[in-house]
């Protein structure tokens, strides 16, 4: 028996439900030779802003129990740099490319969506979807406020929706009391898929130096530590039945983790921090998901989606 891993996310078809998460896989070239890029269901690239950014001062990362904090500050090559230096390589991989982007202002978001769309058109394709990051806790202006207020988030998504004809995924912040209301606003504004979740705002303290472990004091928590929170949020939004697929993100480290997210209601998932622990993580997870389905007698991984039943 072979297992069918093909996955449909709105109009987009993937060869497997497993993508790599933005900011944890660079622009993919870094993993050449370490993992088989062609077997990935998709690649969400490092968040792109209209112009290049250099990011925050060091220290930018620190480890925590089963997780890590980061405040990279969304360092990236900018729309032009991406289009010229990164897109040609990505476009040739034969896997889905989801370009994560953000802005510091309302207009920058819209410019970025438009700029990436134009770049894809110039290049004759290569971008399969945009993933709008309205949830990064690491930029002071913008990000956070955009991402927590349903009204603002809705307006922003609506504007970006109008600026691109690519499928528009919207990545939500977990740092809210009521994710469902936020998700609903974003879906009504035209999101094609919800990416849930980004990192949880957190901090580390060096008790000896009496300084924060990150130069920016606060940063984002990721890794297996947050998986139970991510699963909860995916399930809450899935139960609300908003009519768009969910891409589950947060602490995924094994094929069984993927299955958990699918059962909870995600259509596809992203592997993030575990790429740092094991550069072959996404493909290992893919193989494990295949084995899991085999053991469970499932012909299609998609049959797991939303199958949670009461305890």
């Amino acid at each position: 028996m072979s297992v069918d891993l093909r996955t449909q996310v709105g109009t987009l078809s993937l060869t497997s439900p497993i993508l790599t998460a933005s900011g944890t896989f660079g622009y993919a070239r870094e993993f050449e030779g370490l993992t088989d890029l062609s077997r990935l269901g998709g690649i969400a690239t490092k968040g792109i802003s209209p112009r290049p950014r250099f990011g925050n001062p060091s220290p930018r990362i620190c480890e925590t129990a089963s997780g890590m904090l980061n405040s990279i500050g969304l360092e990236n090559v900018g729309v032009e740099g991406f289009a010229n230096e990164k897109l040609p390589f990505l476009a040739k991989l034969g896997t889905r490319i989801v370009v994560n982007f953000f802005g510091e202002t309302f207009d920058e978001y819209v410019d970025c969506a438009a700029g990436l769309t134009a770049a894809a058109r110039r290049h004759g394709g290569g971008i399969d979807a945009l993933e709008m990051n309205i949830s990064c806790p690491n930029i002071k202006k913008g990000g956070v406020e955009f991402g927590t207020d349903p009204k603002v988030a809705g307006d922003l998504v609506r504007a970006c929706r109008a600026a691109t004809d690519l499928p528009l995924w919207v990545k939500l912040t977990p740092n809210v009391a009521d994710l469902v209301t936020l998700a609903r606003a974003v879906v009504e504004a035209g999101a094609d898929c919800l990416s849930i979740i980004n990192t949880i705002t957190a901090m580390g303290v060096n008790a000896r130096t009496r300084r924060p472990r990150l130069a920016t004091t606060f940063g984002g928590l990721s890794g297996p530590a947050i998986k139970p929170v991510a699963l909860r949020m995916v399930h809450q939004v899935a139960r609300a039945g908003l009519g768009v697929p969910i891409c589950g993100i947060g602490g995924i480290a094994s094929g069984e983790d993927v299955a958990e997210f699918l059962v909870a209601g995600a259509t596809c998932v992203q592997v993030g921090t575990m790429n740092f622990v094991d550069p072959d993580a996404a493909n290992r997870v893919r193989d494990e998901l295949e084995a899991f389905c085999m053991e469970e007698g499932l012909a299609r991984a998609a049959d797991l989606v939303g199958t949670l039943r009461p305890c």
Partner: protein
Amino acid sequence: MRYFEATLAENEVLAPHTFVLHLDGCAALAPMRPGQFIMLRGEWGRDPMLPRAFSVLGVADGRCEVLVKTHGRGTALLEAARPGQRFSLLGPLGTSFPAPSADSRQWLVAGGVGLAPLLFHAERAAAAGFASSVRLFYGGRSAVDLVLLERMARAGIAVDLATDDGSRGMHGRVPSAVERALDADRGATPPTLLVCGPEPMLIATARLARARALPAFLSLEGEMGCGIGVCLGCAVACATRPFRYTCKEGPVMALDELRGPYAPSAPAGDAA
């Protein structure tokens, strides 16, 4: 660069909390150059989560040696590791020290387990017939902390020792030993410093190199996430660009290129 599994053949204790892991199954590390590093992780759960960066002390015949000093939780687990345990390795990673040559003079400045890549370098130099081009300065807290001295003797490398408590070699820190040696030096060309050790020692040696206008290469430490230039976590402030990455553009970097603690009073043109 390869990602692979290795098995612990021996965990050799050299001094309290200082040990050498002898890892089998490391044929992929054959191209390793001194100064390069690996990311290493044991088969424990998801805490500690990230792999740890280690310089390599030596590679030969599929076996890799790593000199470790227990620092926190990850290295404590390594100290407790027993033969047969399995590890994930990623490497070779990063940059290496400049190659020795007949007409170069390289002074290797090592503090603590910073010895590993420099001893590797010195052994390679000696094997290539350049033993007289390298001179090793090696310091530790006390005589018991100075390890692998026989190995240095066997390789025929000139060694200057220093200890904080004066129990062996010069009384004082290793940068002071280098400073004295510089004062006494009558060489035609100034030596190049290759430096690896704890942060304060890097800073002191960097200051010395700048004061004497010596070329210097520092092997930097600093928190790492991925080791392959992806997480952007290992940024260090640089002269010609805001940041460079320790894992890709280091760990060995030319002092000229560094800003921050290594060049606090750098000439104005240095700062961006």
